Structures are given as C-alpha cells and as structure tokens.
C-alpha cells in the first residue's frame, strides 16, 4: 500500500533531517525540569558560588549547541566575526528561539570598554523560582549566563558572563542583567578589524 510503512530509521543521528524548530512543550514542563536541575545541584555543592558555577556549566553546554543549531538552520552557516554582530545575534536570534522574545535591552558598559549587558525584566528560567534570604544574591540566571558564554565561546569570543539582579525603582521584582566581560584578545582583534 502506498504511504504505509515504518517511519524511516536513521542509522546516524546526523542523518536525521533537522526539525524547523517550531515544536513546543509546556512552560511548566520546562519549569519542573529546571527546578530538578537546581535541586540536584544543590545536593552536590556546599556553597552558592559552586552552585552558580554548576548551573553555568550546564548552560554552557546548551549554549554551544544552540550556536551550532542556529548557525546551521537560521543563518545558512555564516558566522559572526564582529563583536556587535555576535551580541545582536544573541540578543535577538538566540533569545527569540529560546525564550520566545528578543531580550529587553542590550547596553554597553559605561565604566569598562570590555563590558556589555543584556537585561531582561524577568528571565524565563526565574519565573517560578524564589530565592530564600539566606542564599543572598544567588541567581538561577547563572544558567542563562552559561548559555550566553557557550554561544560566545563557540563563536570565538571568549568572555566571562555572569547574571545579576538589579533592583529597579517601583518594581517589586528586580531586573536581571547578564554581564558580559570580553577577554583582552577579543577587544584587540576588534580594534584590528577596525
């Protein structure tokens, strides 16, 4: 009979056609999964800095893969070579794919040449997270900082990326800022490229 048969078996996962990226799962499924990630890591560490580092490492792996996926699928295998290019790639494309919207803002740091900030009123990963007082400034946004670091590293822009809460006048929940501090070599290369 025409049209009937087993779905095609691909020997190698690389041979499978890439999906268009439109499939969705419920937000709560992701929130549950993320909470388990955080809870598991809490049992493996003694202090907050370790916890943030582990979340960041988890995010790093995600970021590296997101970069590969998006470069191949959305950008036709072209890669960004300029600083502003990669930053706007993260701020728009990566954010849109992962979180459904572009990031709220992208700013250049005023105090240092090598600092840039991506801000978000409420990070998707933090929506259902409440941080107890005794954990101080811990921010699960470290996961997202890891994603950004993974994308930057994979694209050849090594940087140190951290997530911070920034309290805003008149808002109950603080804004989250992802602070990106580029390595020396990136700035030197950028200056050379003119």
């Amino acid at each position, binding site marked *: 009979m025409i049209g009937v048969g087993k779905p095609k078996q691909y020997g190698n996962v690389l041979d499978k056609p890439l*999906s268009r*990226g439109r*499939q*969705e*799962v419920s937000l*709560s499924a*992701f929130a*549950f999964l993320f909470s388990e990630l955080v809870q598991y890591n809490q049992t493996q560490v003694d202090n907050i800095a370790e916890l943030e580092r582990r979340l960041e490492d*988890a995010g790093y792996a995600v970021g590296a893969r*997101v970069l590969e996926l998006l470069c191949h699928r959305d950008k036709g295998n072209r890669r960004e070579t300029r600083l502003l290019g990669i930053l706007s790639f993260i701020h728009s494309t990566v954010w849109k794919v992962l979180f459904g919207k572009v990031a709220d803002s992208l700013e250049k740091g005023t105090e240092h040449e090598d600092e840039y900030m991506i801000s978000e009123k409420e990070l998707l990963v933090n929506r259902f997270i409440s941080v107890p007082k005794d954990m101080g400034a811990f921010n699960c946004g470290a996961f997202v900082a890891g994603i950004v670091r993974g994308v930057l590293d994979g694209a050849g822009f090594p940087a140190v990326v951290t997530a911070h809460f920034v309290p805003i006048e008149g808002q109950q929940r603080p804004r989250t800022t992802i602070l990106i501090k580029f390595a020396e070599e990136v700035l030197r290369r950028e200056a050379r490229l003119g």
Partner: protein
Amino acid sequence: MPPLVPKSGDAVFASVERVNAELFTLTYGAIVRQLLTDLEEVEEVNKQLDQMGYNIGVRLIDEFLAKSNVSRCVDFRETADVIAKVGFKMFLGVAATVTNWDAEGTTCSLVLEDNPLVDFVELPDTCQGLRYCNILSGVIRGALEMVSMKTEITWIRDMLNGDDAYELRVKLLKQVPEEYPYKDDD
C-alpha cells in the same frame, strides 16, 4: 456549579504557556550529562533520573488535574488513556497511544512515536544501558502514586537503542485507598 467539562489534550496544550521544545531538549541533555559526569555508573544515573522524575510527578499531578478538568477515572484503562491523550499532550506536546492491554486490565503499554526529550541525541558506546528517558517513567510513577495508584514502569522499546518507537510498560500494582489524616475521635 455546572460540572466542568474535561478538555481534550489539544485544547489544554493550546491554553497553557509554551516554550521552545529545543530549550527543553537541550536542558534535559545538560542534566543527563551532569549526572553522567557526577555518578559515572549508568545504573546510578538511571536511578537518579527516575527519582527526579518522581519528584516532578508528585507536583505535576496537581497542575494536570487543575488545568485539564478530568473527572475521576473509573478504572485503570481510563487512567492510561487520560495519561496518554491528555497528560503527555499537555506537557510534552505529543500524544502517546495505549496498546497491549493484558487480560486483567492492569498492565498496558504507552507508545510514543515522537519524543521531545531525545531530539539531537545519540548514545555513545560507553553509555549502553542508559535509559535516557527514564525521567518519564519517574514522572508517571510519581503522579499516579499521588492519586493512590502504586505502579511499576519499565521501558520496553527505546529509539536510542535502535527500536522504532518508545514503549513504556505500565503495571498497576495496587490501589492504595486514601487515608484520612486525622483520627475521627480527636
């Protein structure tokens, strides 16, 4: 109040907030990778994934019952149907099918053709024996335990090991009647 009409899986999925499945897939991959690095033993990782799934399941059932308006299931057949059509659809965006009922009606198979957890995944030779989607079995077990059903869930088919679909065998061990937490004479 008029009785609430149970919504179909598609309707519930359309009404909940959704995120990109790829974020979900990649986050799950990061979790499995972390577990493999920390625990090193494939069996340990399987157990940990099941435990994580159990923790999720006990909380997920509340949300499921609240959002989907399903009425009390009359028997295990209905339960399995509801899990496959509404539960899976509502959270993972894919519906499962129920097959292979045994004679007593206490064991069945849930078959998943499409699984958002395993996009982009290939198991290396060092991880044979890893049940990558074990979190799903924990979720179902945890959720059913919260509605008084003790179950045992095993994987029959796994696409990452070369099969053509994902098949979970769900066996109802016993129905635990709900206990009233307070003594009547206090």
